[in-house]
């Protein structure tokens, strides 16, 4: 599936819920399935700045596709990063760099998109895309 198709799939899953509480509960559930980052990468250097909770992200290149793992000490943050990683993992760096992230708005997480929001969703997206940029250069 392309990033866009996965995003659409996530949006349709979230559309099943009619209130924020169910959406948050679902997000918390998604966080439980997050592919966890290996302990060796859970260093202070790998913490994404701009988040009130700690978020670690790591990327591995397999062939020409990227696979992400992550973790957070906050449950909701874990859910948010799980959603992002689901859309990006197994994708080509170029597609990740170019991906439009408007689907965040559609799943009712728009409030988290503000650059000053303490959870740092914007910082997370930036970090994931930075990994893609780095590996894209390597692929060339």
């Amino acid at each position: 599936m392309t990033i866009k198709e996965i995003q659409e799939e996530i949006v349709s899953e979230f559309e099943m819920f009619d209130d924020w509480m169910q959406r948050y509960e679902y997000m918390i559930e998604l966080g439980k399935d997050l592919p966890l980052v290996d302990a060796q990468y859970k260093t202070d250097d790998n913490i994404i700045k701009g988040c009130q909770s700690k978020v670690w992200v790591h990327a591995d290149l397999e062939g020409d596709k990227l696979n992400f793992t992550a973790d957070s000490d906050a449950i909701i943050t874990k859910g948010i990063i799980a959603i992002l990683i689901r859309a990006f993992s197994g994708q080509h760096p170029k597609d990740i760099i170019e991906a439009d992230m408007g689907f965040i708005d559609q799943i009712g997480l728009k409030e988290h998109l503000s650059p000053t929001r303490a959870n740092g969703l914007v910082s997370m997206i930036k970090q994931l895309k930075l990994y893609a940029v780095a590996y894209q250069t390597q692929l060339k």
Partner: protein
Amino acid sequence: MIDIEKIRADFPILKREVNGKPLIYFDNAATSQTPQVVINAIVDYYSRYNANIHRGVHTLSQEATDAYEVARKKVQQHFSAKNDYEIILTAGTTHAINIVATGFTSFLAKDDEIIVSAMEHHSNIVPWQMLCERTGATLKVIPMTEQGVLKTDVYENLLSSKTKLVFVNHVSNALGTVNPIEFIIEKAHAVGAAVLIDGAQATPHIKPDVQALDVDFYVASAHKLCGPTGVGLLYGKEDWLNKLPPYQGGGDMIDQVSFEKTTYAGLPFKFEAGTPNICGGIAFGVALDYLNEIGYENIGAYENELLIYATERLKEIDGLRIYGEADEKTAVISFNVGNIHPYDIGTIVDKLGVAVRTGHHCAQPIMDFYKIPGTVRASFAFYNTKEEIDVFVDAVKRAVMMLS
């Protein structure tokens, strides 16, 4: 006595909704809400007599100057300062602290020491670290107990003839502890050290008398006192303010200027370079009038009632731990539930219409002390109610259910 219905009607923001729920504002330690009289003062200033002050001969400038200087007098009276020129109107607490910290550069030598407490806000740590870097002086820290109370015996041992300045907050922003500043000031003076007290968190609940305290410097912010942001005060004893060099150069702070030599204006203008926050200063004065009309005794008693009630209700929640259990504290409750991240609780209760602060509250050393990433902090004001606390406790319970 507090007439809560009447008071709540004074604050237009309390009528708004957040996420479809009536707003419950429990982040008063970060900033207080603004009563209509203060909003009116701001509107009135810009509608009727907006002008630059201390310069113009025209009517508007004179009116604005008079209003600004009346505000200074109100601040003087509120804090019981001896002279109005001992009140420097600043951009806020941080600005006021930096005036003193920068000024002390010329007073400190290599072996001198500055003492701060372990429960300081970052704005109270960094300027002193910078001062130590500039001068070679050493920073000493008064430790605290598990309950969040300063160890005064250790403080006494830290004091010596090397101590030049002691800096402590009157009330801790993260814990709500009311510190024994009378004791701290007395002991510091005994070794010849100056004392600066940060009243940012205390002044919404306590009305300090700077002369009775015999404090050398006292600082606070208007926006925690129902006033606007961007204005605050530095109180300093006349002698100290005369000794302290100016902080910024500019207009309004000079006496004579030539390219050979400039002489500075007298107090308070020496520290008020440039056009000040005129409207903010005037509104600050109105905010103090508003608080004094309600009365600090009434405010303190009512808030304490809220604090006791909220503490009891929150303790119903399994695994909830409160940080800051001093006998004397203001209406602030910092807590965590089990291992749930404070950010998670804060996010859910916000969805339920309750504004609380989460995180390290700009006091990372306190969080390191308790080995926690942060806390959820609910801080109450005299316009809050027990009914709001009930909604908040239910919201926390719901969050805990979702998150565990």
